[in-house]
């Protein structure tokens, strides 16, 4: 999505961004609504419930793995791992909202990022 906006902007400014979003979204929206209608009719079936249980657990794994893949590249500059740990502690342990997490963490993040950029 964000990528579409960036590419669309590159080629044709704001209209490009809008076109990219529309092109990217319209087909999938109709497909997913179709799936939603099927869900409405067949979600009482144990078979369908089983499929959805399995797929949702996979989905959780897929999202976590995007995080772990990003984490892998962060090892190139280990001090940055402090920022990541701090973010996780604030969000997961202290349940701070996104705004607070960004506000508290970004000074250290920017400092370390500045040092990383010098290398």
């Amino acid at each position: 999505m964000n990528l579409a906006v960036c590419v669309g902007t590159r080629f044709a400014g704001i209209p490009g961004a809008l076109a990219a979003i529309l092109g990217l979204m319209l087909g999938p929206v109709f497909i997913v609504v179709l799936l939603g209608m099927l869900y409405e009719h067949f979600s009482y079936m144990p078979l369908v419930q089983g499929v959805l249980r399995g797929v949702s657990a996979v989905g959780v794994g897929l999202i976590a793995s995007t995080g772990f893949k990003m984490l892998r590249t962060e090892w190139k500059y280990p001090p940055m791992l402090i920022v990541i740990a701090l973010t996780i502690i604030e969000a997961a342990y202290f349940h701070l909202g996104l705004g607070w997490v960004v506000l508290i963490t970004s000074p250290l993040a920017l400092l370390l990022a500045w040092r990383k950029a010098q290398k």
Partner: protein
Amino acid sequence: MTPLIGLFLKLSAFSLVAFGGINALLPVLFNLAVNQEHWIDAQTFGDFFAIAQAAPGPNLMTVTLIGWKISGLLGALVATLAISWPSSIMIYALQRYLNGMRNLKKQQSIQFAAGALAVGLVLTASWQIAQQINHSSAAYALSLGVIAITLFTRWHPLYCILLGAILGVLGLV
């Protein structure tokens, strides 16, 4: 018409903080849709999440399904638009700002810092949403297995989804 307007406003506000990508904010979306607005129940959220994962297109399709549940096809379109426009504009502005910067080191610093924050937020979000969606230790095991598969093999994610569907049908998850 009123529920549609409420949906549009609430999701637009949500999108304003979601410019880092919807994955990092799934727990917030869960809280909004299930606990605050009672648009859907927890079970339906998990099911919609699964459908959105299996369907082609971006992950924010969970939001599309929530919109569809509230007011049909129009709701789906409104929800998709509402979740897209604020973050798109912000990304657009941010990209112009970064590209316009003369100091490459400064530009890199901002990207590195945002990247590190995003890693922490996505990892936290996946843990929190796992607690809402996974109801058995087998489900957690499957999630962990998928993490291992995606990190250490070149399997296409669709195979993981297929694997999950089969395990689910067999009643193993």
